[in-house]
């Protein structure tokens, strides 16, 4: 039978869960008179009265604050009850812990357990209670909502699955039928890909089994193979093209002016890295081939970094999607080389405006404020439990992310530099470690490659998962122990189970040696999985290792001690009759699939993509009469600029004890730091700075932007952020993460090409090799009425830079009330072609693409030229700033980005608050003052330097003013006399108000 325990606060009026639920109800416009919350545990076991009492008194309730009752407590008079439980088959980490704790405490076999939450709402209608449930407490993709307490007699069980081998008739299908099969069976392959598969099986004179077809679909998915970025592209531009196409690697210019690019990724992002290595950049160790890029750190250690996106799952279930996003990226680090120890996380989110009216949210989508809150909770709960500091991030708001929020999750690891490479050897055992396999997460890889529609939440609920961080933590503990015995690492290779599950992990590890897999050996969460589901399930927290037979016992012992499940699934090493590596799949002795590795990994056809660029023509809006004070306060309150403190404070950013520069700066803990710095090897003074660059508005075609410029600016911003804290600009490695709308559209494909070219040019100019990257294409949504919502092309650049000596790190809070403020610009000194007038118009005095333009338009007196930026000037500037920091004359440094120079200064003033000593500033603007004050041209820094040494900076930038002991910002508008006088507390209120939820 099932025993039901309810645990509730003795005093609901001071219960934080009940109070939080009340706030959430209010945010939905519902005013409950009272809210009671209770945790519910359902335990299916034979228990005697003594055992029940033990569980009630010693396990479930806190005797000081809570009561625990058996069965169903009566609801308060007239209250509406809502109970939320995970759907059957959905991961319930609490239930797993309870299962083991109950078994240990009362000495029984681990029982089946389900947990849930009960809420009783007084003073609301049944519909209102249901609205609170769907709006704040549950997501029906993963939760069941009950209108009364749940106390079933038993839990449902799944019948064992039918394991007969299914063959899929494909050889005789025509093209139309192939297209239909691809969509209906969720394969999401193109016609050419389906045709290639058909030819393969026609040649074999047999039909594929279901598992063979699934394996091909997973391995050939956009998510796994990046086929768009690796394709050949024919690119044409109408109107002028600002890109010089001559002398580019992998690019042919046709007589008709069109351009052919062979393998876009290889010709741009990868080409920059390989050329830099050939030119003498000698500190990269592994680029693009492993689960993460690896660079040298010190003489004993290397550092690896990976950034992933988890967009589609986060659109449907933001909490689970974001949690498993960071969980998966952490596993990438655990699966790099012979395993790295994760030491830092990053997170960047792009969501729609948090104040979007509810009526404007399309069917099938979640309100963006709720989406953001749940994404943050997902990352928080997973990363904090893993004990990894989350150190750097950003949030960018745009209405077009309404149906496709972007969730970028990054992880950085450290590993001994003699363990940066592994290869599965023939004869090694295929060993799965960690979580069990379930039906959760089926078709994640193919799903992520599809365009979303309003029915996807229902159609793809099985692709969405909830994570269990403690399972992954145990697995990490075991793996690091198995990596480091004195006698040597216990395994020859390791990788994570990510998209595609075992099919991708074993397929990749066995690419050159082949593999034999016995699918019935995989431990399952429950009965009822077919062999093909076991093979492609993306259940979380699983790793695959190649283990020499002789080491199995030692590995098993470590796993037993750490309570990690180990299963031997088969062996690496298998060839066909012609000695080519082959993948062979069995279930209880029956062959269910046989695929040549060559077909899996090299068989995918690469068609030519069409890209056509039309420079966007948008009408330039002219701003009205705006004064500096109003503009600055409104810009500081803009969600893109406003303080993200509310988010950052929920992440543990100093676990592991190595964080030297934290994400929030200054005595008040408010200043938005440019980059974080960790000291991964405490005995060494060397640090690692972690930062990012995101310049979406500069590349937004809808706003007249150019993705080429966006890529230059994003890399520049990333470099500036790292340099501002003390990183060596010649030791920065970067990563690209492209999130794009559908690239079957030639315009979107062209914007992708241009962004890639910008990546190449900027990486070469800054000498910042790309070491890894990832793309997520097809971020668009088809509403019920057929309207297409495409995200703006979004390129995140993440960077890590070596800080030679952490004691020289600089932060962005103003330090002194008597110092000089220097605005550093990428001034093209010494350049013969330099035309100062043009330069002023296209960069320094230019508000195009800025938040000022977004709010008000272009200042009337400004020249509306497009923004231009030369990264070679940006590189020289970065080196000069780094030199000044190294010499110790820079008291504070901050990059000038969102909101322009005055917003940067305001942030430096706000960050300095809190020591009791006041710091204010008196600064000047120049001609064209609004563009000068609020333009967001790349390449600029704002530095606070010692007054007595300011003269040394005349080559670096211009003095714009001084600090003083007033607690005010005074802006002297030299040109117009419209001076502004703003107190730092006004700046602070504007900056903190918007997102302090």
């Amino acid at each position, binding site marked *: 039978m099932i025993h039901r325990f309810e645990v509730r606060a003795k005093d609901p009026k001071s219960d934080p869960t009940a109070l939080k639920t009340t706030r959430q109800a209010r945010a939905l416009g519902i005013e409950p008179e009272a809210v009671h919350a209770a945790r519910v545990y359902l335990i299916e076991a034979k228990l005697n009265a003594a055992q029940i009492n033990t569980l009630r008194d*010693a396990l479930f309730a*806190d005797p000081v604050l809570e009561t625990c009752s058996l069965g169903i407590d009566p609801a308060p008079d007239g209250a509406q009850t809502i109970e939320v439980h995970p759907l059957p088959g959905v991961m319930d980490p609490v239930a797993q812990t309870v299962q083991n704790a109950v078994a*240990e405490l009362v000495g029984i076999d681990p029982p089946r357990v389900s947990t849930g939450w009960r809420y009783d709402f007084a003073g609301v209608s049944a519909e209102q209670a249901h609205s609170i449930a769907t709006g704040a407490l549950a997501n029906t993709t993963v939760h069941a909502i009950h209108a009364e307490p749940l106390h079933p007699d038993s839990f449902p069980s799944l019948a064992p699955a039918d394991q007969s081998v299914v063959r899929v008739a494909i050889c005789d299908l025509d093209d139309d039928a192939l297209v239909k099969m691809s969509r209906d069976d969720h394969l999401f392959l193109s016609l050419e890909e389906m045709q290639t598969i058909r030819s393969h099986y026609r040649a074999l004179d047999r039909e594929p089994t279901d598992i063979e077809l699934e394996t091909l679909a997973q391995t050939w998915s956009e998510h796994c193979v990046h086929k768009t970025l690796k394709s050949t592209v024919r690119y044409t531009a109408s109107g002028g093209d600002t890109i010089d196409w001559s002398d580019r690697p992998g690019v042919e210019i046709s007589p008709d002016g069109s351009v052919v690019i062979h393998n876009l990724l290889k010709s741009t992002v990868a080409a920059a890295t390989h050329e830099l290595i050939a030119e003498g950049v000698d500190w990269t160790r592994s680029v693009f081939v492993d689960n993460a890029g690896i660079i040298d750190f010190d003489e004993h250690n290397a550092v690896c970094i990976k950034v992933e996106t988890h967009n589609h799952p986060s659109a449907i279930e933001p909490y689970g999607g974001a949690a498993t996003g960071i969980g998966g990226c952490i596993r990438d680090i655990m699966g790099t080389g012979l395993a790295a120890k994760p030491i830092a996380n990053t997170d960047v989110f792009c969501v729609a405006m948090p104040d979007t009216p509810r009526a404007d949210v399309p069917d099938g989508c979640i309100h963006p404020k709720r989406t953001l809150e749940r994404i943050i909770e997902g990352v928080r709960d997973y990363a904090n*439990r893993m004990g990894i500091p989350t150190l750097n991030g950003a949030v960018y708001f745009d209405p077009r992310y309404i149906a496709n929020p972007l969730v970028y999750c990054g992880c950085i690891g450290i590993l001994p530099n003699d363990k940066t490479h592994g290869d599965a050897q023939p004869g090694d055992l295929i060993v799965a470690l960690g979580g069990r396999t379930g039906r959760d997460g089926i078709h994640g890889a193919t799903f992520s490659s599809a365009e979303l529609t309003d029915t996807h939440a229902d159609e793809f609920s099985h692709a969405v998962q909830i994570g269990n961080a403690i399972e992954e933590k145990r697995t990490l503990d075991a793996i690091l122990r198995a990596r480091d015995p004195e006698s040597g690492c216990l395994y020859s290779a390791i990788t994570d189970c990510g998209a595609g599950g075992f099919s991708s992990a074993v397929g990749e590890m066995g690419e050159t040696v082949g593999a034999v897999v016995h699918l019935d050996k995989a431990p399952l969460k429950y009965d009822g999985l077919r062999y093909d589901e076991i093979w492609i399930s993306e259940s979380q927290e699983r790793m695959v290792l190649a283990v020499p037979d002789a080491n199995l016992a030692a590995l098993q012992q470590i796993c037993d001690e750490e309570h990690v499940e180990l299963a031997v699934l088969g062996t690496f090493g298998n060839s066909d009759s012609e000695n080519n590596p082959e993948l062979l799949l069995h279930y209880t002795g029956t062959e269910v699939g046989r695929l040549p590795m060559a077909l899996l990994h090299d068989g995918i056809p690469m068609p030519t993509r069409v890209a056509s660029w039309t420079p966007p023509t948008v009408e330039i809006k002219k701003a009205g009469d705006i004064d500096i004070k109003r503009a600055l306060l409104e810009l500081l309150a803009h969600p893109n600029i406003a303080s993200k403190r509310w988010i950052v*404070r929920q992440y543990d950013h*100093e*676990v*592991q004890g190595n964080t030297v520069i934290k994400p929030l700066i200054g005595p008040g803990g408010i200043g938005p730091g440019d980059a974080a710095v960790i000291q991964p090897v*405490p005995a060494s003074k060397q640090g690692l700075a972690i930062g990012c660059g995101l310049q979406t508005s500069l590349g937004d075609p809808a706003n007249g932007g150019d993705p080429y410029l966006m890529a230059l600016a994003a890399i520049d911003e990333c470099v500036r952020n790292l340099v501002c804290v003390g990183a060596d600009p010649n030791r920065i490695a970067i990563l690209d993460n492209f999130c794009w709308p559908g690239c079957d559209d030639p315009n979107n494909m062209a914007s992708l090409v241009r962004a890639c070219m910008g990546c190449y040019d900027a990486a070469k100019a800054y000498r910042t090799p790309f070491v890894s990257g990832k793309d997520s294409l097809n971020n668009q949504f088809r509403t019920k009425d057929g309207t297409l919502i495409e995200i703006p092309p979004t390129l995140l650049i993440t960077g890590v830079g070596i800080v030679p000596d952490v004691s020289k790190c600089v932060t962005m809070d103003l330090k002194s009330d008597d110092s000089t403020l220097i605005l550093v610009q990428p001034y093209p000194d010494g350049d013969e072609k330099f035309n100062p007038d043009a330069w002023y118009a296209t960069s320094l005095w230019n508000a195009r693409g800025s938040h000022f333009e977004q709010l008000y338009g272009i200042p009337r007196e400004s020249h509306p030229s497009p923004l231009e930026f030369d990264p070679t000037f940006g590189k020289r500037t970065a080196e000069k700033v780094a030199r000044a920091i190294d010499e110790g004359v820079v008291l504070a440094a901050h990059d000038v980005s969102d909101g322009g120079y005055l917003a940067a200064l305001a942030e430096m003033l706000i960050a300095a608050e809190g020591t009791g000593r006041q710091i204010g500033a008196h600064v000047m603007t120049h001609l064209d003052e609004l563009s000068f004050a609020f333009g967001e041209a790349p390449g600029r820094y704002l530095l606070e330097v010692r007054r007595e040494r300011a003269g040394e900076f005349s080559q670096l930038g211009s003095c714009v003013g001084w600090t003083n002991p007033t607690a005010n910002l005074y802006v002297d508008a030299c040109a117009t006399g419209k001076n502004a006088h703003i107190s730092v507390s006004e700046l602070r209120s504007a900056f903190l108000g918007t997102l302090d939820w």
Partner: protein
Amino acid sequence: MQDPPLTMIVRTAGTNCEGELRRAFELAGSRTEMIHLDALISDPARIERADILAFPGGFSYGDDIAAGRVFSMKLRTKLWDALCAAAERGVPMIGVCNGFQVFVQAGLLPGFAPDAYPDGAPQPSISLTQNKEARFIDEWPRVEYPSNSKCIWTQALAGCSDDPALLPIANAEGRFVAADSATIAQLESNGQIAVRYVDNPGGSQGSIAGICDPSGRIFGLMPHPERYIEWTHHPYWTRLSPEQTSRPVPGLVMFKSVVDAVASQPA
């Protein structure tokens, strides 16, 4: 020469601050041994090797049910006698964050008069529960170290004020609550309140951040002193004067006070 004291650090699935805790003890001059909770349960006599016992922060067993609940259940049912024996032997113990939550739920804190350890773990009289905003907080609130405190870990910090008097917290369930106000008054008059918040971010009763047992040796606190053992850990160290940063770092002072005290005891 006598070996330096041995600190035994008890870890398990989900503890995640044991590395920095070990480093803090080693910087303070201690030897360290990391042991899995289950290994200790299977051979409780191993506790006899320890001169100091430390329980790290983290999310033991996911903090499922409640923070530290499963860990404390194991201590109560499997290790109570061994812990009492160690306490009677005068072994100093520290529980940081999750370790503090474990001490409180296991009944080790607020503790007992010496020679008065009960045979079984008692019901808790205090609790560490959800922060008032029902969410995780990472920040460096200002703290003070009451001058009447008996705590051997914090006594050396009694005068600590201004910029150095901060400690990092990172928790979702760090709000100190006592069953009644008499308990708080008794803790105060007994000198058992070791650390108080000046800013009280989680809403703790009596602004309590950490307490010790009546002997002053068993100490639990929500803040993480092991994250404050270098000046570069301080949240605004780039503004601190060289004069300030030439002084001992407060977090390290806690560990050093106890390691030195144990080392100076006659063998």
